[in-house]
């Protein structure tokens, strides 16, 4: 990895500290309750999703409003291939790539007709696509039961590596590794891989081509780039990341239903990318972590405050959460269009033309 070579001793030391903290984190969280490890795992899952969407929105500048559809595709592929529903129980390292491939194909089918048009069309088509996928998940239970309709699919297999099953606890060297802790480490490995891939992509010819298209598509085309194929690549790559995250979601939950894949989820992921800073990997990660904890924050503040003041819950924290995400989108665009932690080049671009 070239990244490590370029670092000073101090940076390496800082990195090592962060790594140790991240390795110790689940045990610290577990002492406060396993629920916190689960919450952390979902935060990491959203980081993965945000990094996937960041390729599409941040790097290539294409607004994808139905990203959750690819997440859903990955989750359902996993659910169908590793549950009693069809009696199939393939291992996860076989299914995750299949899920990524299916999501990727869905992305290409959707992107091919729309990507040669203006960006706004992609936004609305992906928005519609997200709804269509949900309609199909809800209705493909009749006459042949594929998705089991609104009831969803349950008893999905957990990950299994050799003798270690991710569903139960193992005690190794006196430490209790609960299921969520094992998933945490797996998620961290995937996250590390995704970050490396993202970094490499960003500095590659393709990454530069994406930026060129994002900043001026006509000029990019004039320099001989096949803009449509390069956009399609970004779209397909984002989709396959979504598919992988979906597979892990299905295994962690051991249950999937169409309810988990509504438009609001897409908006939430978009808000994470936008708030953190489109195109900047570290910004996106920070944005995702920050917004992942908004529901918990609201649960522990808004609920007790309302109960104390009015004796009942007037405003559902769920509604507040969506209002926060909507406001995050609007206010970020208005006052800090390149995000809280912007990428240098993007900051220049998003601030140009502004008086």
């Amino acid at each position: 990895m070239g990244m490590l070579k370029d670092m000073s001793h101090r940076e390496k030391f800082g990195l090592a500290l962060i790594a140790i903290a991240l390795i110790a984190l689940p045990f610290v969280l577990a002492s406060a309750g396993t629920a916190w490890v689960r919450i952390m795992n979902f935060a990491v899952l959203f980081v993965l999703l945000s990094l996937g969407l960041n390729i599409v929105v941040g790097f290539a500048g294409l607004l994808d409003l139905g990203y959750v559809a690819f997440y859903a595709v990955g989750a359902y592929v996993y659910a169908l291939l590793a549950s009693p529903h069809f009696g199939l129980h393939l291992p996860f390292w076989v299914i995750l790539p299949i899920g990524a491939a299916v999501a990727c194909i869905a992305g290409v089918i959707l992107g091919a007709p729309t990507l040669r048009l203006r960006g706004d069309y992609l936004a609305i088509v992906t928005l519609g696509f997200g709804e269509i996928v949900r309609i199909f998940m809800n209705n493909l239970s009749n006459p042949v039961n594929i998705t089991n309709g609104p009831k969803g699919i349950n008893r999905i297999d957990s990950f299994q590596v050799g003798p270690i099953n991710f569903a139960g606890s193992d005690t190794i060297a006196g430490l209790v590794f609960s299921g969520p802790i094992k998933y945490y480490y797996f998620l961290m490995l995937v996250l590390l891989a995704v970050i490396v891939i993202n970094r490499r992509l960003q500095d590659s010819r393709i990454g530069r081509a994406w930026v060129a298209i994002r900043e001026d598509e006509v000029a990019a085309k004039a320099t001989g780039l096949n803009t449509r194929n390069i956009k399609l690549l970004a779209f397909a790559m984002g989709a396959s990341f979504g598919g992988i995250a979906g597979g892990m979601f299905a295994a962690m939950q051991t249950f999937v239903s169409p309810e988990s894949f509504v438009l609001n989820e897409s908006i939430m992921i978009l808000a994470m990318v936008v708030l953190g800073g489109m195109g900047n990997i570290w910004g996106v990660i920070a944005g995702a972590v920050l917004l992942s904890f908004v529901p918990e924050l609201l649960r522990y503040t808004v609920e007790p405050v309302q109960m104390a003041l009015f004796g009942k819950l007037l405003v559902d924290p769920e509604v507040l959460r969506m209002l926060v995400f909507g406001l995050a989108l609007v206010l970020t665009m208005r006052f800090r269009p390149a995000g809280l932690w912007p990428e240098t080049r993007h900051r220049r671009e998003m601030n140009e033309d502004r008086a």
Partner: protein
Amino acid sequence: MDILLQQIINGLTTGSVYAVVALGYTMVYGVIQLINFAHGEVVMIGAMVAFSIITSLAGSGMPPLAIVLAGVMAAIPACMAIGYLLERAAYRPLRHAPRLAPLITAIGMSIILQHAALLIWGRNPLAFPQIIENPSFSIGGAAISAVQITIILLSFTMMAGLSWFVYRTRFGIAIRATAENVHVASLMGINANRVIAATFVIGAALGAVAGVMYGSYYGIAHYTMGFTLGLKAFSAAVLGGIGNIAGAMLGGLLLGLVEALGTGYIGDFSDLCRWPGAESWMGERCADGANFVLFGSNYQDVFAFLMLILVLVFRPSGLLGERVSERA
């Protein structure tokens, strides 16, 4: 009962509502090339406001027609105000920003409006009170209700009124000039900011009426209704050629017809037992007139989207529109 004619009548009814909503998208798009994602939510708020007024006046002894009119008259200014605020607070500051910025703002505003409505009107669908009798008339073996007749007539009147306004008045000329080229229009003494705000406000007023019509046709208002309705109306606008007023009307009506006919017949068409030679490969499953329907009417919402994709593949400029590829 004649099913074909019945579906055409139903399709014309929903199609006129789509057309009126599509006008809101297309006018804004024509002038500033922005998809106002929040337009669907404005329509929803129109329906909600009218619902509140109508239910609160329902027992007051006022004549039913006056109550409904009061509902509409309250919804229109409410929506106009929201349309104006949207333009002023959310979109105008971003007019010269990269195009991703107003799009993201639009989707954010849509979420905010939707959840604000959820806070005010609650999570459950609201049933529009039936205060006016809704007699049905029979024509050629199909039924058409008074509400349907009203919706179709009112929509066509509004479309005619808008056409007159845009093509026959001074302000209409200003709108068309701004749509052609904002900078040149400004040089000619047109106040572009006023024109742009006006397209939002006019679109919102039409949307308010559309919301009430939609609500009274289905008898229900819900805080999520703007999303699907908006998506369909946008598809209608693209089908007709976005930015083109006549196109939005044509697209809306066509989409309504396609949706009604598609929903009406998809069950029959996707019934494998009715396919030629079904006995040989379906065998037992079709015995005794049994059905094997792949897609039923629950796929209704898919048609608008399929239509959108098909238009984008084969005729991205829409039926009456100009080219839509990236402008230099």
